[in-house]
């Protein structure tokens, strides 16, 4: 087969080469025309973190920058910690939602000054212990942590017969092991792993109307769907510690998690670049938690393309977008 395919080669080669040369010439002139675009903004690189809210931020910002400023926006998917190094070197321009990576703030923003904290993206992050509402109806005492005492076995599971506390993704800030110990509860802290795994676990328990108590947070687009309520934990005090990996006396963990603004973090190089995108991204702020939840639910709940979801949001929320644009 091959032999016949490549018969009479010499003439064929000459012809092919000639044809190729000609075509390259044609193509060269054809492509030259297409490269003109709105200049001055250039390329902006935004990093999308591994949760849906972040996808919403990134693509809404991308749509705005591309549509109104003529920027070219590149989206990267670098992990949360390495992305600091990327921003320090100017390989990524901005992260639009950072959940308090204090150690990195110290290293990169304070010490090196290679990244700049640009304040809140309009959202308030809050971590806490959550239970489904049907459970609260059955056990009204679960409203506060004190009501859990003595009822731990309600949360029994195959891996924790004494009562399971569903822990969060290892990458998220948490102190539940210490907190459970400090509160003297008999729950066993069970980590099911990444966020997806945690959601899988509790969404199934909720679908079966079974008891569950877990590490969870707001804003999260699914909170309304799941109808979760927060269990009240001891009030915060001065020495309060939220990060379980820090070495601190047990009593310092005996308090609720704090609420904090979700930070925008820019690369210093980007800030100094003079790009018109800098000002717009500095003003980028969700009007409320529910705005991001809305976009997130389109993306993850209805499986809408992120690009289209962003377009839909921008078109229906022009007043917010105009503020970002400084109009």
């Amino acid at each position, binding site marked *: *087969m*091959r032999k016949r395919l*490549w018969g009479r*080669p010499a003439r*064929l*080669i000459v012809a*092919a*080469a000639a*044809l*190729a040369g000609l*075509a*390259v010439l*044609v*193509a060269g002139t*054809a*492509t030259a025309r297409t490269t003109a675009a709105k200049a001055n903004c250039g390329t902006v*690189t935004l990093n999308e973190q591994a*949760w*849906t809210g972040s*996808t919403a931020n990134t693509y809404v910002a991308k749509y705005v920058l591309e549509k109104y400023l003529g920027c070219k926006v*590149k989206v*990267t*998917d*670098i*992990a*949360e*910690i*390495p992305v600091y*190094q*990327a921003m*320090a070197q100017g*390989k*990524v321009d901005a992260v639009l939602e950072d959940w308090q*990576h204090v150690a*990195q703030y110290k*290293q990169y923003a304070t010490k*090196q000054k290679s990244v700049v904290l640009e304040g809140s993206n309009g959202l308030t992050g809050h971590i806490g212990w959550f239970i489904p509402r049907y459970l609260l109806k059955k056990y009204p005492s679960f409203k506060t942590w004190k009501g859990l005492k003595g009822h731990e076995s309600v949360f029994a*599971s*195959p*891996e924790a017969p004494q009562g399971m506390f569903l822990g969060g993704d*290892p*990458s998220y*800030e948490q102190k539940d092991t210490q907190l459970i110990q400090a509160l003297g509860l008999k729950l066993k802290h*069970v*980590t*099911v*792993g*990444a*966020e*997806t*795994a945690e959601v*899988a*676990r509790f969404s*199934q328990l909720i*679908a079966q109307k079974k008891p569950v108590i877990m590490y969870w947070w707001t804003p999260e687009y699914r909170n309304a769907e799941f109808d979760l309520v927060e269990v009240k934990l001891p009030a915060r005090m001065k020495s309060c510690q939220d990060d379980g*990996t820090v070495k601190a006396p047990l009593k310092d963990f005996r308090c609720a998690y704090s609420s904090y603004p979700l930070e925008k973090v820019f690369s210093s190089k980007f800030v100094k670049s003079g790009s018109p995108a800098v000002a717009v991204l500095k003003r980028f702020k969700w009007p409320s938690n529910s705005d991001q939840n809305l976009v997130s639910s389109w*993306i*993850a709940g209805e*499986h809408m393309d*992120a690009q289209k979801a962003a377009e839909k949001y921008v078109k229906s929320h022009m007043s917010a977008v105009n503020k970002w644009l400084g109009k």
Partner: protein
Amino acid sequence: MAASSIAAAPAAVFSHRPWWRSRTTLVAAIVAVMVICHLTLSRTLTWPNSLVWHSLTHYLDNMQNWLAAEGDKTHPSIVYRVIHGISSALDALVRWLYHLLSKWLTWPATTVLGGLLSLRFGGRRAAAIMVASFAAFATLGLWDESMQTLALMLVAVALSLLVGVPLGVLAGRSDRFERMITPVLDAMQIVPAFAYLMPVVIFFSVGPAAAVITTMVYSVPPAVRITSLGIRSVPANTVEAATAIGSTGRQLLWKVQLPLARRLLLLSVNQTILFALSMVVIAGLINTEGGLGAPVTNGLNSNPALAILAGAAIVVMAIALDRVTEAIAERTDPARRHLDVAGRKRARVATVAALAAIAVTAALGHAFSAGAAYSRWTAQDWLLARVQSVLDYVQKPTTFLFNEITNPLGTFLVAHLLQPLDTFLVETPWFVTLAGLTAIAFILSGIRPAATTALMFALIGAIGEWRDAMDTFSQVLVATAIAVVLGIVLGVLAAESNRVSRVVRPINDILQTLPQLVYVIPFVYVFPISYVPGLIASVLYAFPVVVRLVERGVRDVAPPAVEAAGAFGATRLQVLVKVKIPLARDAIMLGINQGLIMVLAVVVIAGLVGSGALGYAVAAGLQRGQFGIGVVASIAILAMGIALDRVTRGNRGTAKGGQG
């Protein structure tokens, strides 16, 4: 006078020990003693705090900060400047290749390039596979991502071979070098990538270079190992003949050993590709051009169906590259496929014609502005909807599958297997566990593996990971046991039946290259119990290698032995059980050994979907910026890996005898 050592006395494989001194009985006895200790002694006897080197984590953190600070200085040291140079060169190389595959060639010419190169060197079947894979990228709507990944993989594989083959040649020619390099290779394969992503980023920044380096850490070892095996497999009499005729060492290497090791060298290309592709997702975490890794990491949270499609594209790429390189290896082997002068001339002409055709297509592509990436009709939306509906079914806790099968099964596994074993290992006093494991290692493999075991588990205790390690250890044991049983059964079946073999092979390939993060998601829903999805991920990743080794072992049993048994009137089953399986013992042991290493390689992924313990600590180390914690947990995984490897490998060692 001349002296040469000869093989030592045959190992006591078939010794006639009384039943009460058989290995099984002794191990059972030790376990019984451990259980008694577990039941009688206090449960609070965990590894004493005074024996833990607490500041290790701290030192490691400091080291990382120091490295980062060094690298960020305005005038970094020469080491950093060299590394930055390498880094930029790698970045440029990957980007150049990506531009070649997209912008310069345009998508039609890239397809033609893949197809014609495969046709020229691999034959028609290879060409069909290659073109089909490109069609799949287009259909999945992931053309651009695929080209990014392809460019990255080609560079990573080429560099892995550039580093791995020379090292493998050295290892093949020198026993001492092989002994030196083996533990390093083991470490490269066992230490989870999550642990060294941050240092890689500090040295190589984020981008293609960092991704290439991360990938290479995992894909160089197979290149070294298989090359060494290839050099060693060159018939000794040929090497001797070439030596006798006056070849220098270099002539021997270039004219005899490398050409004759060709088949295995190409197999190493093959394995390097598969190993490299299994790193796509993790390498994507530190790459600005994440390729197919990006939709996987991101899709997992917002669009699992897309993650699955991207996983499928990775598998397609792996299988296509595997089959095509294999076909090329077969067809271009001069020892097997003899070309006469006319044939060689025809082949040369075909090469030129193929290049011309590629150039023409590229030119046409530009002329008709076909574009860098295929962006016309795709079946992505349709596929997403289909996959999503399956996921929706899987996520429903009211289905038959969930209620009647997976949920009870998962509960059973956890309640009656994992949980008790975990409790047993965690709560038994540490010195009892340490002594017991050492004794078992001694009975199974002898004094040296036992010493290694004792040392490694003591190290785990000393770095403060005893508890987590016992937790992980219990899961590793269960996962390995399941993978080995499954692997041996399937491997034997595949060896006995070509039909089974044909079905099993693609499944193996898929399981080895499909990112675990992708296929583990459905299991997270179907078995929503911690440990189980991780267990399944480990088993699915580990059993293919067991199948492969067992199949090869059973198939390679010398025909005379089988024939002789047949002549005595043995049935097929008797032949299998009494002749083939015992004779394939070495291959089966190697299967267990490799299965263990594979299980350890997914400890982190397992940790992310509920197995917790060491894997969880490693992942947390990366994601919370706690370098020290991640590294310490990785050391524990490595120590466990070395101990388990030596114990399972010990048997192979004695069976072969002191040939060194």
